[in-house]
């Protein structure tokens, strides 16, 4: 008899796995070779410039587009073969979608509710999305943010296990955008996995647990926003203003110091304050600067840090900005 050793292994099975996905339209290669995994309960963001292949990738994963090659599995199902089963378990929001101009909000919610086996209460859902006062409005009379919130409501009506959000906040003003971000983190906090696309780096940074950067149909990097910034853009900058003398001399241990007015960094600032810029790298750099300021008793009038963002990572990896 073999000894009955309990074998306990924790294997994290991805909710979505994509392997060697490819899709072309005529001669345009939209998605070249994309492989990725999305895990339960995370917000995963696909980020990249216009035409990078975000929508194509996402719609192949949803089962709403047919890939040319590659394998896709969502919740253990094949998005094409098991489309009917999968539709009950995923929610989608398309880029730049519309509904019938003269459909009322409650009518859309009511239709969608009739299509799924397990549904949430419509009043509660509309209230959660701040749409209760718009129940009787026609779709065409909603503001951009309200339309997007309605689409989120429709994507969530059947308590899906995974939601797909394609360019959720494009065209919205900053305030509406922030409100939507709050909703998306709320979705994740209720345990739903979120797969989104965006070309706003700030959005990716605020929302996503992990991001994949896509360009010309290929993934060029995957990771948490923090990790990506640390890995590709470790440089840190501190800018501060002081009217003490010989500030530069006391800071020089950390790295080169520049003075905004071009003056001698070691000299006494004539007639008041001077602004200094110190560059370094790594997570400890800002702490080191603060420690020296404290130890030397430098009087600081203004202080700010410049920490690279995903935008800088993108620039570094592709050689151009995301909107160029």
């Amino acid at each position, binding site marked *: 008899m073999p000894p009955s050793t309990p074998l306990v292994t924790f294997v994290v099975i991805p909710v979505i796995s994509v392997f060697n996905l490819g899709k072309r339209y005529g001669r345009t290669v939209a998605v070249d070779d994309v492989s990725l995994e999305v895990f339960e309960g995370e917000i995963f963001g696909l980020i990249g410039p216009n035409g990078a292949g975000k929508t194509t990738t996402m719609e192949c994963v949803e089962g709403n587009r047919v890939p040319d090659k590659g394998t896709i599995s969502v919740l253990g199902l094949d998005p094409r073969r098991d489309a009917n089963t999968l539709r009950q378990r995923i929610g989608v929001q*398309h880029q730049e*979608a519309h509904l019938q101009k*003269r459909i009322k909000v409650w*009518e859309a919610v009511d*239709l969608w509710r009739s299509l799924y086996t397990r549904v949430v209460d419509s009043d509660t859902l509309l209230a959660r999305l701040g749409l209760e006062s718009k129940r009787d409005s*026609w779709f065409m009379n909603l503001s951009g943010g309200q339309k997007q919130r309605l689409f989120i409501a429709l994507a969530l009506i059947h308590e899906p296990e995974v939601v797909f959000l394609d360019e959720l906040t494009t065209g919205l003003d900053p305030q509406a955008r922030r409100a939507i971000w709050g909703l998306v983190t709320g979705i994740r906090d209720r345990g739903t996995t979120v797969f989104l696309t965006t070309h706003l780096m700030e959005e990716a940074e605020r929302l996503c647990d992990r991001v994949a950067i896509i360009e010309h149909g290929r993934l060029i990097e995957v990771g948490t926003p923090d990790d990506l910034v640390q890995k590709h853009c470790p440089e840190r900058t501190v800018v501060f203003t002081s009217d003490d003398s010989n500030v530069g001399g006391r800071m020089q241990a950390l790295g080169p110091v520049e003075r905004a007015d071009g003056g001698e960094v070691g000299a006494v600032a004539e007639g008041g304050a001077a602004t200094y810029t110190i560059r370094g790298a790594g997570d400890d750099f800002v702490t080191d600067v603060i420690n020296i300021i404290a130890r030397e008793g430098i009087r600081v009038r203004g202080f700010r840090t410049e920490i690279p963002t995903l935008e800088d990572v993108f620039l570094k990896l592709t050689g151009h900005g995301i909107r160029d």
Partner: protein
Amino acid sequence: MQPRFLQGFWKLTWLETKIFTREPMGFVATLVMPLVVFIALGRAFGVAKPVAAPQVDIPFNVAILAAVLIALSAVQSLVAIISIYREGGILKRLRATPLSPVTIMGAQVVVKLAFTVISLSLLMLAGRRLFPGIRQVNVFSFTAAVLLSTFSILSLGFVIASLVPTARFAQPVGAAVLYPMLALSGLFYPVDRFPRALRAFAYLFPTTHAVSLLNGVWDGSGWGAHWVNVAALLVLFAGYTALSTRVFRWE
């Protein structure tokens, strides 16, 4: 378990009906335009073979023209709706739900057929009141013939909707296909007297068979005498539907 086709079908149909009535222009045009044509031409020339003395004898039946116009305006409206829905991503959004494609399109067809019946009823009421000498046709038989014709022409509408590049072109492309069809339908000039090739061509269109069937119902010769037209309407329906499932674009 209800068949998948029925899931959401009546709800969507009712919803599309309400939405259609909320658009005053399309709604009025569908219901009123054929009626106006009927009354104006009927007043001017008399309805076909009028018992009351005709002012001028025109060689076509105004009532049948109006009935065919009802069918064609239903098709125009279908083409417009589909192209607007496609352009706005509405079709795509509906398709991403558990609704089956047949349900999404079937609801539109039912709405169009329902408005065809309403429009036709208005026409017949107006006919009774304004043209008392009008030939008494079997209302149910005539309605059934118009519905069958509309059904068949709507299947061609789906093919036309696939050809329309953007919503802006729905009207012109629809008109460019539908009105030549009407000209060749035999309503204005008997198909028998067309040159052979043109005649064969004319028989490819449901309007030709529709006009022949409607003439038959009007004359009282009935469906039996026109079974060939009925069969042709069904065959063309099947053919155009098969073609449209191949060429139809959802986005």
